[in-house]
């Protein structure tokens, strides 16, 4: 082998970069977050259902919020008919979503920290009180 020292340094950097997530985790299991649903508002519900189907909410709530925003801000439609059970909801991030999910920290943020997303919505929209105090 020629210039082996230099080549080994290069290969070490290569291996470090690609195995970084493995070395970082050090083989210790990390459980996925379980968003908490134990808010007063949800406990009051007889039929514990979100605005739409749970799987849809879990995967697509950000697109759904975007859709709601467009409905409210661009089309001035402030009520939404759920396709799940035909219930009517006020289109509002603060007063609808966050009324049921008033535990922002244990609900929204538990997933968001895990997935490393920081929705910038709260630059303008107001977080539920409980979450704010504990922040």
């Amino acid at each position, binding site marked *: 082998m020629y210039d082996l020292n230099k080549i080994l340094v290069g290969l070490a950097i290569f291996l470090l970069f690609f195995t970084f997530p493995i070395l*970082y985790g050090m083989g210790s*299991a990390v*459980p*996925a977050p379980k968003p908490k649903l134990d808010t007063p508002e949800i406990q009051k519900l007889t039929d514990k259902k979100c605005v739409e189907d749970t*799987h849809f909410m879990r995967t697509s709530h950000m697109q759904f919020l975007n859709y709601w925003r467009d409905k409210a801000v661009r089309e001035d439609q402030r009520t939404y008919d759920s396709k799940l059970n035909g219930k009517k909801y006020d289109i509002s991030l603060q007063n609808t979503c966050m009324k049921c999910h008033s535990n922002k920290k244990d609900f929204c943020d538990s997933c968001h920290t*895990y*997935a490393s*997303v*920081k929705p910038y919505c709260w630059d303008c929209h107001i977080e539920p009180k409980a979450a704010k105090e504990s922040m």
Partner: protein
Amino acid sequence: MGIQFSLGVVLAIAVAALVGAQVKGLQYVLGILLPYAAFATFLVGFVWRVLYWAKSPVPFRIPTTAGQEFSLPWIKQAKLDNPSTLPGVLGRMFFEVFLFRSLFRNTKAELRSGNLVYGPSKWLWLFALLFHWSFFVIAVRHFRLFMEPVPGFVQLFDHLDGILQVGAPPLYLTDVFFTLAILFLLGRRFLDAKVRSLSLPADYFPLFLLLGIAVTGILMRFFVRVDIVGIKSILVGLATFHPTLPDGIGAIFFVHVAFVSTLLAYFPFSKLMHFGGVFLSPTRNLANNNRMVRHVNPWNYPVKVHTYEAYENEFRDIMKDAGIPVEKE
């Protein structure tokens, strides 16, 4: 021919993954065993390939350079293009690896009203640069799905990539750049007859594969949403050797993973090894010091030499008699 074949293989992988994703047992193969096998192949294959190259002797310096070599003091040396020292070489390698300096010099030959003319052609360089840098940012961004807690620099990459805050989830700039660049690199092979004539399946296949990876990734982010939290638990499970497989993961995720696994496993045996190869390019990484340092050819057999000194010692008297000048009396 190469086009249909490569596209066919990529589509076959997609179909196989889509079918496999319908069965829980095969999901385990696609989502856990395949990535492990592919990643191991990638690491071992890459290292093997580089060590194989390291066995090639480097008998002397190959100065195919674009500048004046080190010479007399009053001749200006092109220190970056024709370095004779280590810092110079590091500089040249830096510009080569990070900015594709050689490709920047790419020219294009064209027949214009019967004359062959050469002109600059920077498009390939531009899109190659866009492609590679986007790929790098995308790779680093993906660390957020493998690591918990997510390190700050990964969050920073993510933040900067989505800085335009278009839509929710925000549009990533690199998604746009990467896809455009791939389409350019493919289009170049489709449309330019000169390039098409020397394109092989080995050229089309990686491009289609990368396009497939980009398309499935973009679909998952913006159009066929998947459960990111569930997916992260799979990927963290892979990285920590505690594999898990939650229910309700969209089939498209398995297509994405099958594509990426194919890319990883194919990598060490393909032209994509230029990732390692660029660092081992003899015309880039060797200082042009042919005339300053003695480079011994490593495969030289011992040559029986007869120096002039020895020759003169042997024949001095005869030379003197014949009136031939000698160095030592």
